[in-house]
Every structure is written in C-alpha cells, then in structure tokens.
C-alpha cells in the first residue's frame, strides 16, 4: 500500500522552496537598489554644481569646455527610439498577425524561430554589420535618394554621412522587432478561439476577423509590447554607439550625427578624467536608469493585465 506523505514533510518542502525564492527576489531588489544608490552617489557632484533641472535643460555638452548639459543626449535618445518604434511597431504587429493568424503552423514555427533569433544576436554584431554593410548601403543608395526626393523637409537635409540618427534608428528597429513581435504574439494567442469563430460566423473575411476579434481586443497588450520595445531602444548602447556618429547636438536632420544617453556614457567614461565629467556621465546614467525602469514597469503592468 502507498502511504500518503506526512503533512509535515510537504510543508517543509514548501517552506524551503519559498524561502529560496524569497531570498532570490530579495537579492534582485537589493541589486536594483544598489545600482540606483551608486548612480545617485556618483552624480552628486554634477547635481550640486549645475542643478538637476538646468542639467537637463541646457543644450551644450562639451567636455573640453567643461559644459555638461544633457538635452542633446536626451534628444538623441528620444528621437532614435521613437524612430525605431515608428518602423518596428507596425512591422512587428504585422509579423505577429501573419504568424499567428495567417501562416500555416509549420511556416509559423520556422519563421517565429528566426525572428526570435534576432534577439539572440549580440549587440556588437549589429554594430559591426551596421558599419560594414548597412551604413555604406544607406550612404550610397538610400540617403541620396531621400535627400533628392524629400530634401525640402528639414528631416532629410545635409550630407549623407551614413552614420547618424537615421542609421541608429534603423539598427534599433531591427533589434527591438523580436521583443515587440513576440509579446504581440502572446497577446494575440491569449484571445480565445471562439472570438475569432464568432467573427467568421458573422461573415467576416480573414482581415475583418483580425480587425474585429483580434486587434480590437488587444489594444492594451499591444501598447505594453510597444513600451517594452521602447524600453529596450532607450537603453540600447553598443550598436547605437557604433553607428550614431557620437556628436551631442540638436539638429533637425535625421542624417546628421547624434548622441544618446547610453552612447555618451559608453563613449566617454573611459577617457573622462575630471571629476565633474565623470559625475555628469553618472547623472546621465541615473536619468537613463529611471526612465527605462519606469517605461519597462508600465509595459510589464500592461502585459500582465492581458494575461
């Protein structure tokens, strides 16, 4: 006869298990808090000297002149991230719809796998590919074409360097595409089958079914997917540093070099010698930390709500 395990033993296993989980979670929280504290501590000098608000609002970043205003790198981060979202979001949703709603199961599995692989490629590889393949192609073909056709817009003026905001946005869009599309696929998969069937039974075509039963019910989740992509784009460092041109400036043309919060830190930390330079970089880091933390938290909450 099989004896049921004693109640006490079961409880103990539970206790050990939850104990381990609890300590691990505590460790993670501790690491987060320690990062925040470190950044806060390291940026104290910059805050004292320039003031937090004027640091954010002044538009001159020039270490040679000891001028540390964060506006240009905030501008670079926001514009490159938005540009990447503008490209990656519709593309990712389209891919997710195709894979979940249209493609035959086998094709969906293979393609889905390939898209997810994009997320596994190290950032520095994106950067190298950008420098040696994407940038020359953009410089020779795409940018001159855009300048000649849309050059009357301030967005597409000036010489075609290859490096710059435009290229960074493109590379970023490729990097956040798997993040957005895999979340979008989860969001779509959470919609019950019967929803789609009732749309079809009413005489909806496939596309009408997608609009009525799939897209309309997944607005919140898709917004979450977008925010998660944004969180990744804001903080992405290596590839951006390699292709953005690294000049902290606020100009209207997307083809001009720029600088982001992440790339300025990666670029200048090693060579920064003065205390105020180091401290200013830490302050940029603190800002980035807070912004990505908030963005990703909002994203997670939205996605949780769907599931």
């Amino acid at each position, binding site marked *: 006869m099989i004896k049921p395990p004693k109640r006490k033993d079961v409880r103990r296993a539970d206790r050990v298990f939850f104990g381990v989980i609890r300590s691990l979670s505590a460790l993670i929280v501790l690491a987060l808090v320690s990062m925040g504290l470190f950044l806060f501590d390291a940026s104290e000098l910059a805050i004292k000297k320039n003031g937090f608000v004027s640091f954010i609002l002044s538009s001159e970043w020039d270490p040679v002149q000891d001028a540390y205003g964060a506006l240009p790198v905030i501008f670079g981060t926001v514009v490159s991230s938005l540009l990447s979202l503008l490209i990656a979001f519709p593309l990712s949703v389209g891919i997710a719809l195709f894979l979940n709603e249209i493609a035959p*199961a086998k094709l969906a599995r293979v393609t889905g796998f390939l898209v997810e692989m994009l997320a596994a490629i190290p950032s520095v590889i994106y950067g190298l590919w950008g420098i040696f393949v994407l940038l020359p192609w953009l410089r020779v073909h795409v940018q001159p074409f855009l300048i000649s056709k849309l050059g009357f817009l301030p967005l597409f003026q000036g010489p075609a360097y290859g490096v710059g905001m435009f290229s960074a946005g493109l590379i970023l869009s490729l990097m956040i595409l798997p993040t957005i599309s895999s979340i979008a696929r989860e969001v779509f998969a959470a919609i*019950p089958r*019967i*929803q*789609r*069937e*009732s*749309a*079809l*039974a*009413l*005489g*909806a*075509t496939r596309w*009408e079914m997608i609009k*009525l*039963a799939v897209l*309309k*019910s997944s*607005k919140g989740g898709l917004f979450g997917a977008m925010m998660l992509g944004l969180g990744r784009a804001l903080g992405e460092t290596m590839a951006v540093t390699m292709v953005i041109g690294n000049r902290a400036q606020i100009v209207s043309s997307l083809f001009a070099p720029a600088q982001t919060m992440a790339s300025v830190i990666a670029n200048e930390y090693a060579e920064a010698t003065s205390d105020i330079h180091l401290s200013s970089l830490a302050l940029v880091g603190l800002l980035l930390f807070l912004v990505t933390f908030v963005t990703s938290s909002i994203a997670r909450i939205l996605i949780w709500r769907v599931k």
Partner: protein
Amino acid sequence: MSESILKAENLNAWFGPVQALKNIDLEFSPHSVTALIGPSGCGKSTFVRCLNRLHEEVPGATAQGKVILQGKNIYDVAVDPVLIRRKIGMVFQKPNPFPSLSIMENVVAGLKLAGIRRKSILMEVTERSLKQAALWDEVKDKLNQPGTSLSGGQQQRLCIARALAVEPPILLMDEPTSALDPISTAKIEELVVQLKKNMTVIMVTHNMQQAARISDKTAFFLLGDLVEFGETSSVFTVPREKRTEQYITGKFG
C-alpha cells in the same frame, strides 16, 4: 412536403485522421425547427459547423460531401465561405459578445461587415433585433456599455440579436441554453418558436424536453452516424430505432 432550403448529402467530416461524421444525409424544410440530439461527442456540433463551413477553420479539420443551400452546393470550389456565412447565422454554446464592442456595436457588427453604415438603419435594426431577442427592455438605456457587462443569459440573447440582425434565412444554434437559467431558457425557447415565421432554425440540444417542446423535426446522432430523423412527435413516442429509444429514455448518453 415543401422543397428543402438546406440539405446535407453524403456529408463526411474529419479532425485530422479521426472521422467525426459519416455519410450524413439530412434535409431541412423552410420555416421549421429541427432539433439535433445525441450523446456527447457524437458529432452534433461538427455537423452544424459543416453547414456554415466553420468546421474547416479548425486546424487539420476537413469535410467532404455536399451541402445544398437554396439549390447550390456550398462546398463547390468556386463558393466563397464568407458569403455563405452571411446567409447562415450561428449562435454558440458559450455567450461570446465581442468584448471591445458596446451592446449596440455587437448587434450591428454583421451589418457593418456587410457594408451598412447609415446611423438610422443601424439604430432601427438594433431595436428590432434586441426586441426579437427579448432583450430590448433590459438594455435600451445602456446601448453604449460593453456587451460583456451583461449577465450570461443577457449576453446569450445579445448574441442571438447579433445573429438575427442580418436577417439570415437560416439560424444554427449549438446548445444555446445550456449555460442559462430556466427563465432565460424559456425566453429563448419562445423566441425560437417565433423565429420560425421568418427563418429555418437548426438547434443542437441535450435537453429532451426542450427538443420535444419546440422542434418540428428531430435528428438523432450517434458516434458520427445519423441514426434517426423524423417528425419530433414520432421520434419521441414511437422511435423506429432501438438505439433512439434507449437514448431518449435515458438508457445511455
């Protein structure tokens, strides 16, 4: 007997390699209510889903044979299932209003698909359909609230209104009352009898009394076969088949 409006001929259906329906021949005459009965898993849902070509939307599911709607085989290669489904309404077992749409938007969803956009028409149809589905009085003051804010029984009547809004000549109902309380059930039964004036109703039910109360004809399915089909009164009183008698007297199923 009048010419049939819908007719299955030698209909077979599979889920992958598993056959769920075997050589079904069944006719439905206009302005009649037909009850489909049989034990769980015998293929009733599969059968009604073959009638509006919804079966094939399940991955791996296939169907073979003919379904003649008003003289034309809906399984002809040239036939677009979308157009068929606009003529054959369907109500599912589980109430399933579109969660992102309001009560009114749910009712007129089918009309919008058909390209009808005029506000006055939509309003008119909303009122007519909701009245038909015996829901109007309960929701007339909150047409803009989400369809999912209603109770289960109300949601099911909303789904019926949604199906009725496009005035299909045929209405399929797959156990429409199995999740409902007796009062909502009674309302829906009454509605079905009313609907006969304008359409043909085909209804799956596990409830023998319900089948006896509201249907003109009854079809008994067993393990993918159609065992018996005839006037409801005779199927329930003098069934031709031993297996039918055993089922309706509760010997199995």
